[in-house]
């Protein structure tokens, strides 16, 4: 059992495994997104209070959930890298950061274009929005810090410490709407009084969330493969790869 675990902790064995997994997650993301978009943009009815502006929820909430979840996963891999000094853990943490930044940007952007018609403003310095903006800066900070350090092993440690320090921001984002009096609403699921409408809206949102999961997994696996090529070029296992041998 233990032997199996550590087998895939090596880039040489994880690289082909990730390559086999990517098409499944990418196809799953595309199919789920098509179903979710159909429900969100066509099948779900217009909201009684917000009109069609509420349809932004089908990308806003999944992106916001992913932005926080990916940060926790990145911090987890960083902790594993700092604790066990395993190569794959640090590479996984490095691979998650850009996708996390993209999800955070989408959450902020779609929130702005939802806030304008419903609250009358694109932006407010309330606790939920400010802490989500700090999350974007944390992702960008981790990426910039890595680019600023030439030695990858030193970059792993520095980025790991930064990522772990920033994890304190996650509960602040999550509970901000309860701890402070925010413009951002507390609950995002019950938008309407009619239960039948709530069910189809919730279904669309959960399917879009699943699509975001599959997308993030596919993108992270694709990026970690590239990071392996960047960091282990010259290693025997990279030289024997078919995509390296054939131009």
């Amino acid at each position, binding site marked *: 059992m233990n032997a199996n675990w550590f087998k895939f902790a090596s880039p040489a064995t994880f690289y082909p495994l990730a390559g086999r997994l990517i098409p499944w997650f990418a196809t799953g993301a595309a199919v789920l997104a098509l179903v979710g978009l159909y429900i969100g943009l066509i099948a779900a009815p217009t909201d009684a209070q917000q009109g069609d502006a509420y349809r932004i929820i089908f990308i806003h909430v999944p992106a916001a959930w992913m932005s926080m979840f990916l940060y926790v996963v990145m911090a987890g891999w960083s902790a594993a890298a700092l604790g066990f000094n395993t190569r794959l853990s640090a590479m996984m943490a490095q691979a998650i950061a850009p996708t996390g930044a993209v999800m955070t940007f989408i959450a902020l952007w779609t929130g702005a274009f939802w806030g304008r018609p419903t609250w009358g403003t694109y932006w407010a310095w309330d606790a939920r929005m400010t802490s989500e903006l700090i999350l974007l800066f944390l992702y960008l900070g981790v990426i910039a810090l890595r680019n600023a350090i030439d030695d990858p092993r030193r970059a792993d440690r520095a980025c790991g410490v930064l990522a772990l320090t920033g994890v304190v921001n996650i509960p602040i984002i999550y509970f901000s709407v309860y701890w402070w009096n925010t413009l951002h609403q507390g609950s995002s699921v019950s938008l309407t009084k009619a239960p039948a409408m709530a069910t189809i809206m919730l279904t669309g949102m959960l399917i879009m969330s699943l699509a975001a999961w599959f997308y993030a997994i596919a993108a992270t696996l694709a990026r970690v493969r590239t990071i392996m090529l960047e960091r282990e070029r010259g290693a025997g296992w990279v030289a024997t790869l078919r995509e*390296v*041998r054939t131009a």
Partner: protein
Amino acid sequence: MSSFFAMNGYGFYVWSAYGVAALALVIELFGLRSRRRAALAEARLADPDAPPVPGVAV
């Protein structure tokens, strides 16, 4: 069909949100592809037995 895009007057906000979100994902995916190509080209350069890479000076 035009009523679908109008979104009962919220079309600008809905499509600005969906359009830029889609654009962000497309940019990420193109970035992934070009980064992989660059990494593969570097890996071929690091291996003296590999065939030459088109368009990359050795």
